[in-house]
Structures are given as structure tokens and as C-alpha cells.
């Protein structure tokens, strides 16, 4: 058993180190994605909440499309709900492959000149598609990291035999021991969440990583046709016809689904005698993600068929596991619990990474030589933990500061994230690590603190006016920015004090207490 524990310890250490930086980025952006619609609302301050029922919003969206895209081959409408205040309309004028036109409407059906932004959706996609590399490569990279995270979690439990007892004996200011305890505490606190989120994350892309079961049973595409059935395609008749009222179809679908409205409407051949409206049920109130699609004749408004995805057995289990990962079913309280568990995941990975350097620094202290591997890890820790934080703050700040008419504005918001991140990387390379930590953490703190200020100066939806109007989303976002600014500021102060105390102790020719083995470790 001792050998197994040692083997697991080595495995846990090295996989945690090699994939920890990527896992940290995935956890950070994935955690923010639990509020992706709220982030998008903040990043589109021009869109205001105009109350509208799903059927009214659908009618107004179709009226808009009839005026602006009467010749389109298809229309696609995403209806507003409790979290999304905008109606999004898309249409395709030509064949597949031609970019879709996208417009944002408010609840009243009026087009909103919202600033160009990728909003929270970019962060959501980043957590599994990354950026600057092909999505397929990214998904394999992310999958490898998630697979090793799963094994690393299990090996972590096997490695730390006192993991649960040490959870209750957290020590502060004792260097390596404290980092170990913090890593331990965050790991234990949300261990069921970490196991769930890692396993279900793999399940979301299961067929990409493990296609062999489906390949053994089906010829090309057979598995997908069964697991994700689509409504049959129809050809246009080539004869013009008036469309039936779409709001009535939305109400009918809502009645059939026990009060749950459609989330999207896919309208094929609008204005044609063969027009079809495919309404897909909202995922609200349901953990599973396989939602039925109800089809209506666009001309008569009568239901013409329903495609129901498998609701039992392993396919349903898979659907529920994916739903558990995405958390779209969660109410506000549960959504915050998801968020806080994600933050604990970031803390677990971050403290694990820092713990590795703290341990190594102690071992290498007497050597006197430069160790390239240690130097790289130390810098990458700064780049990942402080740099990504600063970059995300930069993304939000750019949303408020970039000129509204800037070409490719949404892309420049994303570039801003990576420019800030890269700048922190360069800073971490040229500065000693003990200085780089407080400096970059202070930068992240300043960026987050500047976000609500920039919001107040560039929009009429600053914190004071949001408080006055009771706009919970805007208030929560600004307060979260201030809290993050405060947290990074405290971290900068603590690391600055720690660096100063080590320097002064070394100047006196002593070894810092933080580098001495504690009683707990010695035992």
C-alpha cells in the first residue's frame, strides 16, 4: 500500500503540474460561464429589459424578419427568457456556408444597436475550445487535461491519507504546510463537485474522445441519428403563401409541454406554401439537455410532428450528466453554488501549483544553482494565476473603453484579454518571482477596480443608477468586479509582505520560517 501511495503521489504531482495551468484556465472561464447570459447582459448595456411573453416576442421577431429579410431561405429566432432579455434573430440568405445575418431585438421587437461583443459566450466557448488553435485540437487538449484531472482527483484522495482529518487543521503563515493545507481544504470542501464536473465534462464530448462504442454498433452517422434525431427536411414549393400567426404556435407548444415555452424557433422557407416552424423546448426546469422539437405548418399553424429524443436508459443518463455539467437548470441560488464550487476548483489548482514551487524552493535553496525547470514553473504560475485574472478584467474593461464604431470590435475585446495576459507574461519573465507576484496581482486588482468606474463613466447604467433602478444583474456584476479587485489587492499585499520578510530574513543570514519543515511535515 505504501508503494501504491508513493506511485499515486508522483502521478498526482506530475499530472497536476503539467496540466494544472490549462485546468486553471478551463476552470476559471468555465466557472464564469455559469453566468454567461448575465455577463452578456452587462456587456450589452444598450439592451434594456422590456417585459414580453414568448408568444409576443415571437410575433415581433417575425414582423421584424418579414420587413428586413423577406427573401431569406430560413429564419432562426432565440426567444428571451428569465435570464436573456434579448430576442436574437438570424437569417441566411444563400446556401449553407454563407455567413448568417444576426440582429438583437429588445422585448418590444425593436432592433437594438448593441455594441459588438462576444459577451459571456466567448468565456463559455474558451473553456473547451480555447483560442488561436483549431477547436478540434483544443477539445482534444482539454479532454486530455480533464481525463488526467479525473485520475488526479482519485490519486489525490489515495495520496493524502489524512486528507479529511487535515481538512480541519488549516495552518496559516507556515509556507509549504499552509499551501498544502489550502490545497487540501479546497479539494475536500468541494470534492464531490470536482468529481462530478470533471466526469460530466468528459461526457459532454464523449463521442469525440471515445467514439468506439458507437463505431462498433453503427455505420457512419447512425449513432447521432438515433441519439440526436432531427425533424425531416422539406423542400420549398416555390409558391408564396401567408404565414400563420407564430405566437399561436408558441402558445400551443407551451400548452403541450406543460407550460414550458420554446427556446428557439427554426423557420424554414418563410413565406412559402411549404413553410415549416420547428420549435425546440426550453431547457428551463429540466436537468437533461435532450429537448423535444415540435414542428408546425408555417401556413396553417397546425402541428405536423414532434421529434422526441430518447428519454430513458443510458442515453437519458448521458443527457442528465451533460445537464449537470452545464447547470442550465439551476435556479439563482444553485447557480451561485456552482460558481463558488468553481472558484474553489480554481483555488485548489492554484494552491497546488504554488505548493509545488514552495516545496521545490526549499529543496533547491541550499544548491545555489539556477534550475531552469523551476524558473519556468514559477513564471508560468504567475502568468496563469495573476495573468489570466488580469486578462479577464481587461476583457471587461475593453468592453467599456473600446470605441463603439471600431471595426471588428468584438475581436478586439478578445484581443485585449490576450494582450493583457501576454503583458503579464513578459513582466513575469523579466522580474524576480517574489516581485512579479505582488506587482501582477496589484495590476489585476487595479483593472477589476477600474471596470465599475469605466461602466459609470461610459454608460448610464453605473452602480449608483443600477442600485436606484433595482437592476440586480448590473449591481451584482459591478459588485463582483469590486470584490475581485479587493481579493487580488489583498493577495498582492500578502505576497508583497511575504517577499519582504523573506528578503529581510535572508539579509540577516537566516533561513525563512516558511522554508523550514513544519512539525506536521516532519511527522
Amino acid at each position, binding site marked *: 500500500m505504501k508503494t*501504491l501511495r508513493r506511485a499515486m503521489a508522483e502521478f498526482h504531482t506530475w499530472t497536476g503540474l503539467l496540466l494544472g495551468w490549462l485546468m486553471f484556465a478551463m476552470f476559471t472561464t468555465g466557472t464564469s460561464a455559469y453566468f454567461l447570459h448575465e455577463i452578456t447582459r452587462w456587456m450589452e448595456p444598450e439592451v434594456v429589459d422590456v417585459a414580453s411573453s414568448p408568444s409576443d416576442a415571437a410575433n415581433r421577431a417575425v414582423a421584424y424578419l418579414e420587413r428586413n429579410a423577406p427573401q431569406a431561405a430560413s429564419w432562426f429566432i432565440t426567444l428571451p427568457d428569465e435570464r436573456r432579455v434579448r430576442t436574437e434573430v438570424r437569417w441566411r440568405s444563400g446556401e449553407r456556408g454563407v455567413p448568417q445575418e444576426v440582429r438583437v431585438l429588445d422585448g418590444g421587437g425593436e432592433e437594438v444597436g448593441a455594441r459588438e461583443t462576444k459577451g459571456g459566450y466567448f468565456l463559455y466557448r474558451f473553456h473547451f475550445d480555447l483560442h488561436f488553435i483549431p477547436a478540434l485540437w483544443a477539445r482534444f487538449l482539454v479532454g486530455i487535461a480533464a*481525463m488526467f484531472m479525473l485520475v488526479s482527483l482519485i490519486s489525490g484522495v*489515495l495520496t493524502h491519507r489524512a486528507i479529511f482529518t487535515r481538512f480541519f487543521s488549516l495552518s496559516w503563515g507556515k509556507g509549504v504546510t499552509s499551501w498544502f493545507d489550502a490545497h487540501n481544504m479546497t479539494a475536500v470542501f468541494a470534492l464531490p463537485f470536482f468529481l462530478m464536473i470533471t466526469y460530466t465534462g468528459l461526457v459532454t464530448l*464523449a463521442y469525440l474522445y*471515445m467514439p*468506439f*462504442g458507437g463505431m*462498433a454498433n453503427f455505420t457512419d452517422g447512425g449513432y447521432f441519428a438515433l441519439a440526436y434525431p432531427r425533424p425531416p427536411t422539406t423542400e420549398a414549393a416555390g409558391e408564396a403563401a401567408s404565414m400563420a400567426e407564430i405566437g399561436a404556435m408558441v402558445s400551443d407548444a407551451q400548452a403541450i409541454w406543460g407550460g414550458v415555452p420554446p427556446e428557439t424557433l427554426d423557420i424554414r422557407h418563410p413565406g412559402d406554401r411549404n413553410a415549416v416552424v420547428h420549435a425546440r423546448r426550453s431547457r428551463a426546469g429540466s436537468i437533461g439537455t435532450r429537448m423535444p422539437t415540435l414542428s408546425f405548418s408555417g401556413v396553417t399553424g397546425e402541428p405536423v410532428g414532434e421529434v422526441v429524443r*430518447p428519454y430513458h436508459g443510458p442515453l437519458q443518463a448521458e443527457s442528465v450528466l451533460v445537464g449537470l455539467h452545464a447547470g442550465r437548470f439551476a435556479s439563482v441560488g444553485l447557480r451561485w453554488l456552482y460558481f463558488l464550487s468553481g472558484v474553489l476548483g480554481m483555488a485548489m489548482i492554484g494552491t497546488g501549483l504554488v505548493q509545488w514551487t514552495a516545496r521545490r524552493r526549499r529543496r533547491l535553496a541550499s544548491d545555489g544553482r539556477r534550475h531552469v525547470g523551476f524558473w519556468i514553473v514559477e513564471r508560468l504560475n504567475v502568468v496563469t494565476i495573476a495573468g489570466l485574472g488580469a486578462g479577464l478584467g481587461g476583457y471587461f474593461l475593453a468592453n467599456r473603453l473600446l470605441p463603439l464604431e471600431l471595426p471588428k470590435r468584438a475581436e478586439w475585446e478578445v484581443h485585449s484579454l490576450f494582450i493583457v495576459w501576454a503583458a503579464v507574461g513578459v513582466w513575469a519573465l523579466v522580474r524576480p518571482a517574489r516581485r512579479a507576484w505582488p506587482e501582477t496581482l496589484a495590476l489585476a486588482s487595479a483593472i477589476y477596480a477600474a471596470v465599475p468606474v469605466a461602466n459609470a463613466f461610459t454608460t448610464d447604467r453605473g452602480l449608483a443608477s443600477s442600485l436606484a433602478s433595482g437592476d440586480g444583474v448590473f449591481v451584482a456584476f459591478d459588485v463582483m468586479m469590486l470584490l475581485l479587485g479587493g481579493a487580488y489587492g489583498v493577495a498582492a499585499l500578502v505576497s508583497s509582505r511575504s517577499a519582504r520578510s523573506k528578503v529581510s530574513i535572508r539579509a540577516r543570514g537566516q533561513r525563512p520560517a516558511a522554508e523550514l519543515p513544519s512539525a506536521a511535515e516532519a511527522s
Partner: protein
Amino acid sequence: MDPGQASAAANLLSFLLFAVLALVAFSVQSVGRLWLILLASGTLMALVVWTSILSEGRV
């Protein structure tokens, strides 16, 4: 079991199998023996699947 359901079940279980195999791989005394076991069991399972496919076992 329905082939679609069986495929989904295999997908869900494969990650757990992977986790166990990874843990075993890093804890065995003899890596050579592990390779032998994995290659032998992999070959056996591949033969079963191949036979199934040859006998038109796919939908």
C-alpha cells in the same frame, strides 16, 4: 440492449475504465507485464468486435 443505448452506456463507462487503467499503469511493479496484459486484452476485445462487424452486427 438497444445498440444506441449500449453505445451510450459504453461511452459513459469508458472514462471510468480509463481512470482505473491510468491508476493501475502508474502503480504496477512491472510495466512490461502491464503492457502484455493490455495488449492481450485489447487484442481479444478487438477480435470480438471485428467478428461482430464481419457478421453484420452494425446497424
